[in-house]
């Protein structure tokens, strides 16, 4: 197996080295990546989309289909994980239900250190503020839907680790959970049909100057949906893997 792997790796490496030998050097301002459609996005992106962070502009407006299906992919991943039997099995009822000392879910678990508990609880609001700021100011600073989804998701996972499974599950309101998980694909579908009605193109964004506010509203809806939906999906993936098997 080792020999086969080494031979395979060497063959792949040789092929890829031949491949990169034919590539233009990176960093060259006249390279194809900077002269084709990328140059157009840089030149007219702000005027056409109203988003100053061009990564967000490309992500949501120019390459909206890509992002739509990407959101569908992470939703499908969550569905796949939840479809496995251990995720749906009911966890055994916790003994004693003590709320004073936070404990990890299972019975023989080590209690969380009070120092770690305190610091995570102290830092969580700051992390949440950072995530919301990167969402709110995502058009003029680095940040946006996916970034704040990742940050909020990581924060919820940290809280889930110190508070234990039962408490962490309450972070996502139970009744709205199904809708929140599907928020990304749903919002994309709705915006896509709105764009279709307005422009005649699926997931089209109105380009004329008069529709400026509408276009921005569409982008904001997508950003918020990606952030909330993505964060909920990340937290749910964590909880599904954390469930006792």
């Amino acid at each position, binding site marked *: 197996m080792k020999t086969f792997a080494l031979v395979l790796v060497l063959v792949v490496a040789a092929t890829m080295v031949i491949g990169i030998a034919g590539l233009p050097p990176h960093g060259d301002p006249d390279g194809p990546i900077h002269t084709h459609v990328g140059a157009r996005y840089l030149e007219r992106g702000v005027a056409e989309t109203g988003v100053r962070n061009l990564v967000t502009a490309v992500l949501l407006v120019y390459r909206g289909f890509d992002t739509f299906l990407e959101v569908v992919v992470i939703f499908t991943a969550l569905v796949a994980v939840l479809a496995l039997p251990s995720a749906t099995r009911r966890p055994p009822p916790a003994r004693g239900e003590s709320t004073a000392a936070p404990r990890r879910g299972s019975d023989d678990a080590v209690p969380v*250190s009070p*120092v*770690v508990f305190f610091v995570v609880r102290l830092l969580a609001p*700051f992390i949440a503020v950072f995530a919301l700021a990167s969402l709110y100011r995502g058009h003029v600073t680095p940040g946006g839907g996916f970034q704040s989804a990742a940050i909020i998701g990581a924060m919820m996972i940290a809280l889930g680790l110190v508070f234990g499974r039962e408490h962490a599950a309450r972070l996502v309101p139970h009744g709205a959970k199904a809708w929140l998980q599907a928020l990304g694909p749903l919002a994309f579908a709705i915006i896509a049909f709105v764009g279709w009605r307005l422009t005649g193109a699926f997931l089209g964004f109105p380009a004329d100057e008069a529709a400026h506010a509408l276009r921005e509203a569409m982008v904001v809806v997508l950003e918020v949906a990606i952030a909330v939906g993505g964060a909920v999906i990340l937290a749910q993936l964590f909880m599904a893997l954390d469930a006792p098997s």
Partner: protein
Amino acid sequence: MIAGAVLEIAAVALVVLGVAFLLAGTIGLVRFPDVYARAHAASKCDSVGAGSVLLGVALHDGVAFGDLKLVLLALLVVVSGPTTAHALARAALRSGRRPSTRDPAGPA
């Protein structure tokens, strides 16, 4: 003018101090014998080191409102570094690691 020069010197001094602490912490991380001593070296020296580098960068080029971010970052480093070291040392203790002692007859 004078105030600017003083600020600049303070900034450079803080950065140099921070780098010295980081160097000491890194040497300790490599040279110390067991996980507890290493966590001790890494957390203390890196908190002071990274904190003072960040403060030095904040003082560099004058003090502006945006430098508050760097102060917050320094506070974050000072809070989170020792917490991590504490969690590491606690996990090591719970998994049965004994601190190394110089006494050759002691527990290994």
